[in-house]
């Protein structure tokens, strides 16, 4: 069971206080979008073995959403950051490349 840090209230707590919300930084496509765009937005998700940017909510806590950069195989956590952003901030990317120099950013991030 993971420990997760909520950047909104500053609490680091066990996973049972949180709820996972899937891949972060999706771009919404609404009416007027093509079938391909809409399909990609609604259904297609990265499933990387390695670095993953994901959404979490501190549901048994301050109730706020935030993002976590995490390794899906080793479960190491690179950092938490605001949900009010469309891409991972540089300091998070720096932590990742520092630990995994070979890593390259994927589709949605």
């Amino acid at each position, binding site marked *: *069971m*993971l*420990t997760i840090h909520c950047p909104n209230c500053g609490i680091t707590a*066990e996973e049972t206080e949180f709820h996972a*919300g899937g891949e972060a930084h999706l771009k*919404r*496509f*609404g*009416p*007027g*979008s093509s*079938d391909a765009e*809409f399909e990609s937005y*609604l259904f297609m998700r990265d499933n990387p073995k390695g670095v993953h940017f994901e*959404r979490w*909510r501190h*549901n048994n806590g301050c*109730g*706020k*959403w935030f993002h976590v950069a995490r*390794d899906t195989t*080793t*479960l*190491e*956590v690179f950092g938490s950051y605001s*949900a*009010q952003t469309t891409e991972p901030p540089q300091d998070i990317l720096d932590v990742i490349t520092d*630990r995994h120099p070979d890593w390259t950013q994927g589709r949605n991030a």
Partner: protein
Amino acid sequence: MSTRLATGGRLLKKSQAVEFTFNGKTMRGYAGDTLASALLANDQMLVGRSFKYHRPRGIVAAGPEEPNALVNLGDEASFEPNQRVTTTELFEGLTATSQNHWPSLEFDVGAINKHLSRFLPAGFYYKMFMYPRSFWKHVYEPIIRQSAGLGKAPKTKDGDTYEHFYAFCDVLVIGGGVAGLEAALSAGRSGARVILIEQTAEWGGRTPVDGGIIDEADAQSFVDRAVAELSAMENVTLRTRTMGAGVYDHGYVLGYERVTDHQPGVAGPRHRLWRIRAGHIITATGAIERPLSFAGNDIPGVMLAAAMRDYVVNFGVSVGDRTVVVTNNDDAYLTAIALKHAGLDVPAILDARVLPQDSELMAQAKALGIRVLMGHAVSSVKGGKRVTGVVVCSQAGEGAVLEEIACDAVAMSGGWSPVVHLWSHCGGKLVWDEAHACFNPDPNNPPIGADGAGFVTAAGAASGMFQLDDVLNDAHAAADGVTRSLGFKTPKDAKAPKGARRDDAPMMPVWLMPQGASAKLREKAWLDYQNDVKVSDVRLAAQEGFVSVEHAKRYTTLGMATDQGKLSNINGLATLANAVNAPIPSVGTTTFRPPYHPISMAAIGGEARGAVFQPVRRTPLHDWHDANGAEWEPVGHWRRPYAYRRANETTHDAVMREVSNTREKMGLLDASTLGKIIVKGPDAGKFLDMMYTNMMSTLKPGKCRYGLMCSENGFLIDDGVVARIEEDTWLCHTTTGGAERIHGHMEEWLQTEWWDWNVYVANVTEQYAQVAVVGPNARKCLERLGGMDVSKETLGFMDWADGELGGFKVRVYRISFSGELSYEIAVDASHGRAFWDALLVAGHDLGVMPYGTESLHILRAEKGFIMIGDETDGTIIPQDLGLSWAISKKKDDYLGKRAQERSHMTDPNRWKLVGLETVDGSTLPDGAYAVGEGTNENGQRNVIGRVTSSYHSPNLGKGIAMGLVLNGPDRMGETLSFPGTDGKTYEARITDPVFYDKEGEKPNV
């Protein structure tokens, strides 16, 4: 025979005699005994029968690795099967019974299997019981169930309580032997927060038993000093009887504390599950001795050498008068020496090794007059329910008899394996230690924590250290490194105490005894005692192609019993490696999974049983309902009254009465569970236009509008009435199960997509008790309460207003889910019960009668109103339900709009909502399917629709239903066939879903 010696027993309190029973027979022991030592002291060598062949089995070990000695413990409310006698502390009045035998332990019918063992090898069940297929259910399984299985399932509810405890520390040390104590001391001195847990009741582990010398004194004095110093440290928590059960991600550990197992009847929880978060974990879990694989190594009286030493030294119990020691290493000599010192006979030590010169311990043994036979082995053990002798052979040969030695016990040692379970649980890798023929934790591949660094360090024997001095240094260094990495400073002058070194000769791996044992001997050489797996079985698995260790494990069931192969794993791997001619490390190990040793299910459940098994949500009116005949219906975690049953009334009668009364006079419904969410802000209208398919921004303050909510993939997820409170404030009602979900849904979109929109939401569901006052007399009742104007003119249909009624501060909504004149009235929850009571008084001669959820369902179904969860199932869009009128055509966007344009959603062949009326007036079975022409590719009848809601309507005097039907709205008047699961076929006509008051005049009065 096994018996209690006159002297010895370092853990016993001989002043405290304890009485207990085994299979009804009264026996005596002392405080400090385990059930195992007490049974042995009473000459109870035979303790159970094996799983498959029902062979007689005795105690083999002295700790959690024990494979054989499992018993039923206690009775009735304290009954528990499969308890290890070696980990059960003796207490006054303990009752134990043996398992897995019929009719008795001494005489067991199932033992006939052992004569058939040649015909019951590994994989036998898989091969034998395949055909004919029908035999499995009716012949094979019942017979196997009768004869297999370990203990009995408890019949009485568990009378004990259990709890969890959340603990946090910098360093968790698991294992309270000398390594664990030294690690905790070193960590504790650095100022780090330390928890040290030990699974047994005693500190010190093996070292005091084995006569280790620390700082030139006996180990016990080091242990006493260490415990005293640790107890005095503010930053250290010490816990005995607490096992490290599992290591999980990010430093999470489960500690299993057996609080009152050893003193039943004392107040408090029986087990406590420690849910520990540690910055770093040190596993000082020691090592476990391996058995040797020779024919008859499972006969009662054959025991691990170290266990025999434990019984003599710790408990003053001799397992036999004459013990033959068989070994491949020096450690077992300690047993021979200890037995000799206890005045017992050791006719011979059979040492498989051939060594150029005697080691320290060998010389000591010889000096005591023990006959040491080098290069010798056990060919077979003689005896049935008890060892009577050993047949001696050369280890190098095939088992040719050299001599027979009469004895009543055999002490065996095949070397030691570090307890690497906890290291491995979370991904720590192992390396093969050639010198000691065991797997050690690989310090270069530890389990990885949140920061990407290792979070477990093994220390002492658990990291492959076998010299006392190395153990202490290793533990000290481990703790030192760990605390330093956590930012603590260990005092410079702190050093590990000095452990005395022993000059041991190297051990020699022995995986089969003798090395060329014949097939006949191999068939009696047990690897896994509990699951009855022999050397021959593993060889057979390899021969049949199950050469992967995970496959061989499952084919033979090696290591799959409740001991998880603590004794058998390495021996089994080595046997497999030999069979496939591969080096042991390349065969690898099976996966170590938590828990290390079985823990109680109840401890895992903790407090969550009985009334608090899961939260039950109660409305402010719950107690009234409960006192007035409510039959409860769970809706989410809520409990809502299904109906209020009166004396001499069936539930159905009650529902019919409530429905009729509501239509004719007046009903009250506790609607407190409906979600209420306040949405406020300059962008609230825009936001609600996105949330709902309808236009909410155009709603006038003071007005209500029914709204539909869809998910982004178009499906209907919730519905409810929205009221505009002020220019910038709306109140959204949700379904009973929907409040938290919809509140979360709104917050999600506001926080993660439209974070620049100025909207705040608040879930105020539980602030209010909400009562629906429904029926022709509703207005009269409210007027009697007095206060605000509730007339049609002032408070029309779909209006709301704040005011006072009967002195209560209320908010009144003129909305109706029943098709009647209806007011939903919200009052602060703390006044909810008083308000309800006031309504009952005011409505007394107006025919007031509360109604439950089933009546609510019928009332809404008569009106053709959909219910989320009945008409919807997560695949239904509003367009399917004839709700296109509630979808705004003017809006560019709302959640689900784009999805509803997908080809599958616009398919004219989607099933659509219609009403259904049985031809004969009966009630359609809920969920029944309408069948069409022909069959599908699986040969099943094609289906063209299904029933989503079905009730008997007392107002219409017939069954009414709603359903989704292919091209339904275009087929009005057609009759469909619905085969029921009761064998009958129901004929129903397609109708309009509104059965009652089609013009909607009744609520609008």
